[in-house]
């Protein structure tokens, strides 16, 4: 059941200034509440409380987004079922010949994963933008980039990871061998974080913009092309007997690049949207 707006665990876990003005005894109980006072306030143990704040804030954001998603399971499940349905439609449209299906399986599964990730992008920032949590995040002492990274990780845990875990079951429908299924899972595990990271930039740019849902697909899908090529290519290389290592390494390189630049670009885009 969806919680009322007031119960969204927004400020309490993030330690934004107003909420964070709680008494200092509570600070010892919840490790993830940031010390609200300026640095001069606590020199001794206060410094210790300040030290892990980045990681604490990161995990707090992740936990909060996961919690919100658990209270509204339908959002996550819709994306998953979209993935399943799209993949299942292809054999109906193309025909049940197993040789053909085996050949198109990597592409179909990856394109469906792309579309499913894209559909879930608008829930990344939209709700927080609507109720003002995002502005509190931008104002909080924790760098916005860290919070954005947390949100992207949570998004991946809710969209990319389930897709990767579900993919082998769907791959069986396409008569993929077990070795190829393993490569498919690995390629999705490496590739879907890149989709979330790039998608976050698009989601931040289209925040509160009219026609945002369609627009984000226009912005993000061309940028997804390299991931699609090497993700599907890895499975295909495995199918044809070439090793998938090269493809997976390139995917990992994309992940490294996207992990570095993605949150930064997203932060810039979010600040523009919040202006």
């Amino acid at each position, binding site marked *: 059941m969806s919680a009322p707006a007031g119960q969204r665990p927004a400020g309490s876990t993030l330690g934004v200034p107003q909420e964070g003005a709680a008494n200092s005894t509570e600070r010892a109980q919840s490790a993830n509440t940031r010390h609200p006072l300026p640095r001069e306030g606590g020199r001794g143990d206060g410094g210790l409380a300040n030290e892990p704040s980045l990681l604490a804030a990161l995990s707090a954001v992740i936990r909060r987004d996961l919690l919100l998603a658990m209270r509204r399971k339908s959002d996550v499940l819709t994306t998953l079922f979209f993935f399943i349905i799209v993949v299942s439609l292809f054999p109906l449209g193309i025909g049940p010949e197993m040789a053909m299906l085996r050949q198109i399986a990597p592409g179909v599964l990856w394109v469906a994963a792309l579309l499913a990730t894209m559909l879930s992008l608008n829930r990344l920032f939209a709700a927080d933008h609507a109720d003002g949590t995002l502005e509190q995040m931008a104002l909080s002492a924790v760098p916005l980039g860290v919070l954005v990274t947390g949100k992207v990780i949570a998004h991946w845990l809710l969209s990319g990871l389930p897709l990767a875990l579900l993919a082998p079951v769907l791959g069986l429908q396409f008569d993929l061998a077990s070795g190829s299924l393993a490569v498919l899972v690995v390629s999705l595990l490496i590739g879907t974080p890149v989709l979330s990271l790039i998608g976050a930039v698009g989601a931040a740019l289209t925040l509160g913009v009219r*026609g945002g849902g369609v627009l984000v697909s226009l912005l993000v899908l061309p940028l997804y*092309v390299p991931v699609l090529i090497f993700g599907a290519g890895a499975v295909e290389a495995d199918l044809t007997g070439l090793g998938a290592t090269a493809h997976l390494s390139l995917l990992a390189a994309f992940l490294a690049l996207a992990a570095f630049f993605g949150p930064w*670009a997203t932060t*810039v885009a979010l600040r*523009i949207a919040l202006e």
Partner: protein
Amino acid sequence: MNTRLSTRLSNWFGYASPATFYPLAGKMIPWFWALAAVFGILGLYISFFVAPTDAQQGEGYRIIFIHVPASWMSMFIYLVMAFWAALGLGFNTRLSGMMATSLAPTGALMAFLSLWTGALWGKPMWGTWWVWDARLTSELILFFLYIGFIALQSAIDDPRRADKAGAVLALVGVVNIPIIYFSVKWWNTLHQGASVSLTRSPSMAQTMLLGMLLMALAFWMYAIAVSLTRVRAIILERERHAGWVEELSEVQS
């Protein structure tokens, strides 16, 4: 504040103000149109009357005099757009965003022309309108990037936010273009789809190259003239409440 530094900066940034750039652009536009016409006439003359008929491709090859300059411009304009975008984000100048906005439609047009003429050339030469060649595919994606940029900017009502959001998108795109290009290239070699290689072009006749360069210059001048015209329109639209706009003779009449 250091006065010398500030005057030097104001020299640099003097034309970054729409009010001063508007008349300057107005003065420059006829020159660029004239240059575009001169280069265009020369280039077309050379490409259609002077350049020899290709031994293998016959007369059909002459479409490259449009196709290659259009492809070059489509890529170059994206870089220029990203440059203005970076400048706009970095210095917070209003004009930079307007320049990026005004370049985008011309860039999209060039990308489209490049794809269109490529298809027209491909049908007689390769026997197909389209192959999934690395260059064709990345040009198509470049076209999508332009469309995305235009769509994003037109979806945002506040022009300042539209400029900045577009700038971020242009910069993200410019980082991605080489990645996309090489991905598509490697994808293509793995698939071994197109048997035609564009890179193994035979050494080109001097006159052909000259014609192509002249046409490229003509396209370049045209792009500048058109985007300056467009940026003037954007300035008028956005600054319509400013005093200096109301004093313009073309506005008063």
